[in-house]
């Protein structure tokens, strides 16, 4: 190829043509320079789009920053006001209920279907794609519109519900039913964790099940003694990721409630309230305090998952 040709031309110009192996130290500077050159875009992005904004956000959370009005340092006022803010408390309640109830249901569905699909029958790939598809579009505005139409007054869910003796009126306008509706939307997207579970299930050596068969273990026992422990790293991964994701629902709640989080704050997800405060009312300092609180909570939850993982996550080799 032309590569070798050009390379030889280059080596004629530059002195260190074929440096022996022990000639490494002098190249180190060049390596460092190359490293930073390649890393430059990421580094620039990291400083200006992540690290810098995080520090700025921390600073803003101690101010009453507003794009138009005068603003200044107010200490911990934002944080103390948050806990006296009934709408904030509602948003915390909605979001944590959604995360605590929705995530396990979603993961259970994902694991159940993954186990159903984990065999050598034909069509497995097709089924896998079919079940995965909702994960790709579930957070989109289009699906939020469909969901709203399906669960609205006189929508199909309302009609079917009435057939089974539920009260008419639809789920969208009923504060008790909006959260189940949102959780159903989340569970509908079980495909992404399912695909990851399926990849994990394929890693479990079949000999383990054969040995269990010889020992006369039943299916339940095999599930709790083999499948679940062997799958625990994957389960751990899915649990961390899905929990963090569940704190960040935005588009569907925004569209279904028309940006308001109603009825009776029942779809006022944390990020929706953050948006309302920060970008709707311009109280960016207050919103920054909310954002930092979210980071702290997500950090603590991740930390708890990681700290407790050694009690229930088995990595390869340990399981014997």
């Amino acid at each position: 190829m032309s590569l070798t040709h050009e390379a030889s031309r280059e080596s004629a110009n530059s002195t260190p043509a074929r440096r022996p192996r022990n000639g490494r130290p002098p190249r180190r500077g060049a390596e460092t320079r190359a490293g930073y050159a390649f890393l430059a875009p990421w580094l620039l992005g990291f400083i200006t789009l992540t690290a810098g904004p995080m520090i700025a956000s921390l600073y803003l959370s101690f101010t009453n920053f507003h794009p138009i009005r005068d603003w200044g340092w107010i200490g911990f006022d934002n944080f103390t006001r948050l806990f006296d803010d009934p709408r904030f408390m509602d948003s915390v309640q909605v979001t944590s209920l959604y995360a605590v109830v929705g995530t396990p249901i979603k993961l259970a569905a994902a694991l159940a279907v993954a186990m159903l699909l984990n065999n050598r029958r034909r069509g497995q790939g097709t089924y896998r794609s079919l079940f995965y598809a909702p994960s790709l579009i579930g957070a989109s505005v289009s699906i939020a519109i469909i969901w709203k139409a399906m669960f609205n007054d006189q929508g199909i869910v309302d009609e079917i519900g009435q057939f089974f003796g539920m009260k008419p009126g639809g789920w969208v306008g009923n504060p008790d039913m909006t959260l189940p509706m949102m959780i159903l939307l989340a569970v509908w997207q079980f495909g992404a964790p399912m695909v990851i579970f399926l990849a994990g299930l394929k890693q479990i050596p079949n000999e383990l099940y054969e040995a269990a068969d010889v020992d006369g273990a039943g299916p339940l026992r095999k599930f709790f003694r083999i499948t679940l422990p062997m799958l625990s790293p994957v389960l751990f991964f899915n649990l961390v990721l899905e929990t963090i994701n569940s704190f960040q629902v935005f588009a569907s709640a925004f569209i279904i409630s028309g940006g308001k989080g109603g009825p009776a704050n029942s779809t006022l997800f944390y990020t929706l309230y953050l948006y309302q405060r920060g970008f709707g009312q311009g109280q960016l300092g207050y919103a920054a305090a909310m954002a930092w609180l979210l980071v702290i909570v997500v950090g603590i939850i991740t930390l708890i998952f990681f700290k407790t993982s050694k009690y229930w996550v088995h990595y390869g080799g340990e399981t014997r």
Partner: protein
Amino acid sequence: MSNTTPTLTGETPPPAPPAAEDRSVQARAARRKAKVRGGTRTVLFHGVTWALGIVMLYPGVWMLLSSFRPTNQIIGEVGLIPRETTLDNFTRAFEGIGGVSFWTFFSNSMILAVGSVVGVCLSCSVAAYAFARIEFPGRKLYFGLMIGTLLLPFHVVIIPQFIMFNELGWTDSYIPLLIGKFLAAEAFFVFLMVQFMRGVPRELDESARIDGAGHGRIYWFIMLPLMRPVLATASIFAFIWSWNDFLAPLIYLRSPDKYPLPLMLRQFSDQTSISDYGAQMAAAVLALAPVIIFFMLFQRYIVDGVATSGLKG
């Protein structure tokens, strides 16, 4: 494994000819029975899976078929087959909203999505090369920071970013929406590419180094061509994520003629009354169509990408 049974029977005392015949008949019957059970199991498997598949697909199919229904027949209609079909909904959806046609929104979405793909492929592969192939002090630290941003909620940076872009006069432009893509801010893709590059044999770049090629050449002539599969996966996800993105355009864009499709849909669902579900459905179908087509074309890449890297949908 399956032939353990015959050897076991072979070890039992040699049976008399009639008994052997009897046994082989029994064995055949047992095998047939097992086959039948296997058959019913397969049927059961496909039955259950299909039933589940129908439930999963129902919202999508319902949306698609509703978009061809007259508006007054959408709500309260449980069945799938429309009694009357019409294209009126699509005509209204194509007209767009507020004097901006559907195709303007569509091409805005396209510009953003293609821009994201280009930015992600270039910037993330360069950063991944530094992490995977260049040894320099601080690399481990930077890699750790990059991984840290994977789990960071986006919301903590969006407020200062908004203030910063506002000061720079970049709001109501696509710069805030694309700059992160060109600065490798999407750590998922960097991580995905680092993982891929670690699987590329080092002999390839070492032999190129002996020939005198620098990192720039190795990256461009050796690594990038080898990275085609991972670039495909990253492109697909970058495209779809950008296509579906709602929060960032909502914050940064003011003029309706710059809106991408999700913002058009939001206007549709806000402004048109309940009675115009038809146009909403048609617009939703049109907005999803490219993603669905993408998915059908590249499902293997997409699903395998999720399976190997844990990328989210």
